[in-house]
């Protein structure tokens, strides 16, 4: 037995060393691997897709540059990813893909035609950020950043958790978007990304697109440095989706109101306009949300969505020159300003809700709440819930002392 064990051990050691020195069996050769940091999907003709992959290209010094490669006219996203390999000779790895951009045209149909590739794949994490582009995803990924970042890195900063805290961006990841799509409400939202050109500058990073078409194989992946315009990304508007299709767009103020009331935003800045005497004065306030809740109640067989928000505000600036006393007491917000802020907030919140419900978008996950908290009334109320729901707001702003 011992002899056999010894022989078996020798054999196993030999096999191990063979595996080690021949370097095979499921390896990734990092030098032949394209590290995809972002994927952009645009609608092509006849229901196909144009897929742009932003590939991080490290140089010898380790600096970040990127190259965009576009595969056009594939039937599915998976096919496009596979073609990336065929055309470029690189094996694309999506494990570091932290951003998925959808071109505007893809939102005309169900975006999950494209997105479910990422849900099926075990190697793409559904923690990646998702956003809708105002134009095409390829153009957005090709935009430059004024501070030298990769476009995907710059966009990721705009869509980061820190940005979410300011309330100006409705950040969502693939998991949350998919949850909403598969939930009772079949709704969701994505931030709409716009690239705002700043100034022309030389040596901006962000890449030169190489096209790899279906019929011709240019296969290009250029290296990233080129002179071009540098763009700032804005994601303050929110696109609403029902069954994967775009139905409405929330403006900046509506987005802010929604985030303050519902999402993880606890602190934001907003403007309030009041009339003092005959003058129109704009106060710029810092708003700290203390407690917030949204409850769906059934009152008299009718659904009522109750918002309860308690916030504290502080004057950051005003468009009039303040007196010494006013400046010294900047933390104390005048009552009329607080009331105006409450009104403004409620107005924008109702506008967001109306816009969503009018298009059938269950932005506040009402059907889900009805199912979870009022299962007995669900069957009766769920069909016309969005139309029938009455919204009440109990919003109270206090001054920060």
């Amino acid at each position, binding site marked *: 037995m011992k002899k056999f064990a010894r022989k078996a051990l020798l054999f196993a050691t030999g096999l191990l060393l063979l595996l080690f020195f021949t370097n095979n069996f499921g390896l990734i050769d990092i030098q032949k691997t394209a590290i995809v940091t972002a994927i952009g999907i645009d609608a092509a003709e006849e229901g196909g897709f144009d897929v742009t992959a932003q590939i991080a290209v490290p140089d010898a010094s380790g600096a970040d540059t990127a190259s965009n490669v576009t595969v056009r006219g594939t039937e599915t996203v998976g096919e496009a990813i596979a073609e990336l390999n065929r055309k470029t000779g690189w094996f694309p790895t999506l494990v570091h893909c932290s951003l998925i951009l959808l071109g505007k045209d893809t939102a005309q149909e169900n975006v999950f035609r494209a997105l479910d590739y990422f849900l099926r794949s075990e*190697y793409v994490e559904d923690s990646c950020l998702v956003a809708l582009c105002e134009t095409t995803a390829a153009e957005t990924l090709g935009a430059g950043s004024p501070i030298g970042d990769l476009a995907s890195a710059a966009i990721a900063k705009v869509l980061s958790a820190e940005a979410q805290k300011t309330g100006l961006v409705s950040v969502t990841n693939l998991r949350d978007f998919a*949850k909403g799509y598969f939930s009772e409400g079949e709704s969701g939202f994505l931030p709409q990304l716009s690239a705002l050109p700043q100034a022309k500058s030389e040596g901006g990073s962000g890449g030169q697109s190489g096209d790899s078409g279906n019929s011709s194989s240019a296969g290009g992946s250029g290296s990233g440095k080129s002179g071009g315009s540098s763009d700032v990304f804005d994601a303050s508007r929110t696109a609403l989706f029902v069954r994967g299709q775009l139905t409405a767009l929330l403006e900046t103020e509506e987005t802010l109101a929604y985030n303050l009331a519902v999402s993880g935003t606890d602190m934001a800045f907003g403007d309030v306009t009041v009339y003092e005497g005959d003058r129109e004065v704009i106060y710029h306030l810092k708003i700290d949300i203390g407690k917030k809740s949204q409850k769906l109640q059934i009152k008299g067989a009718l659904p009522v969505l109750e918002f309860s928000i308690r916030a504290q505000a502080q004057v950051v600036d005003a468009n009039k020159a303040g007196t010494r006393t006013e400046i010294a007491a900047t933390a104390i917000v005048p009552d009329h300003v607080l009331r105006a802020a409450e009104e403004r907030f409620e107005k924008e919140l109702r506008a967001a809700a109306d816009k969503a419900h009018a298009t059938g978008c269950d932005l506040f996950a009402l059907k889900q709440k009805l199912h979870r908290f009022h*299962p007995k009334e669900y069957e009766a109320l769920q069909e016309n819930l969005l139309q029938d729901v009455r919204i009440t707001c109990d919003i109270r702003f206090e001054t920060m002392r």
Partner: protein
Amino acid sequence: MHKLNVRQICFWLAAVLPVSRLIVYPATLSFRAGNDLLWPALWNLIAEGTVLLLLLLLARRTRRTFFGLLRERAGEAAARMTALLLALFFALAAVLPLLEQRGFVLQILYENVPSFLSFAPLFALLLFAGAQSLRALGRTMDIALPIFALCFMILLLLALPDADFSALLPVFGRGMGEQARTALFSLPWYTGAPCMLCFVGNFEYKEGCAKKVLLAYAIGAAATLSFLAVFYAVFADISFLQHNALAQISKYATALTPLGRIDLLFVIGLTLVLVISACVPVRLCVHCLGEAFGGPRALHAAIVSILLLGVTVLLNPAFREAQTFLSERMWPVFALFGYGLPLLAALFLREKKAHRSHGIEGKTPRKDLSAADRTRAPSPETGRTLRAEN
């Protein structure tokens, strides 16, 4: 000298047994039971806990092993036959965890689906572990607990910010019938009781033992249930897409940070505990084969490992079918061996107080020794075997 310590059994119940239920089981449960996934799990945990309690009461009244008691009551042939059947059951019970682990490992620890060769060395480890004593098995539990506790707590804490527990509502939304079916189809994941049956007589039952063991089991059950709750709270309607739940729940906290997926290090830690948990049914299968046939443990371990390797290779491309077959078709077998046999043993083999067998302090009665143990010579070192405490 007893091979296992009560503490080690507690650690097994609290840390090692639950981990095998954290891979595919949560997704499977959520597919069948939706937001009511906690209830079928709870019922199975209560049932298993009850059987464990009865087995502890059996252990309280005897120093014999299960096979020793069976030998005394029903004869040698019956004991050997039961041992053989139990061995087959343990081999069967090892199949699903191995397949789950294969999928988990190849998808989570690798980025392009690697060859089966990356998973195959596990069977060499199973062979090695199967050839070791029960004492060694017990000691690995001492190592597994702190690793599990640390890694599990961290993963759970990382997942909490993304958890919306209202997803678990409404309670009993799916109906009792569906939940009952789900509970039955979950039986392949609840094989702790037959393991405990094999441990009876191999540890020293002391006063307060039952309380400790049940507390440990309750902790393990709480860990399972809390994981299931957090899992569903994080994923809600897309839960059943998450096949490797253990590696999925905590990624949202770390994925976009500068350090990246640091939670994968803790997942790797739990993979180590998973490997240890896969060794338990294999080692007990070897134990039962020893009871049935005698002979060297290493030989039985080799047979079992090769058999399991063959089965895993065969079922490699058909995990769904295998899982469906084992859970939906074979659940009566799991019910019989997982609950029925231990229950019967606990009820009918229990010795009355007056008939309690009194062996020499610390010495296992000869009837309870397996065929292999009966023929083993003492160490030549000092004429007596110099053995450590557990």
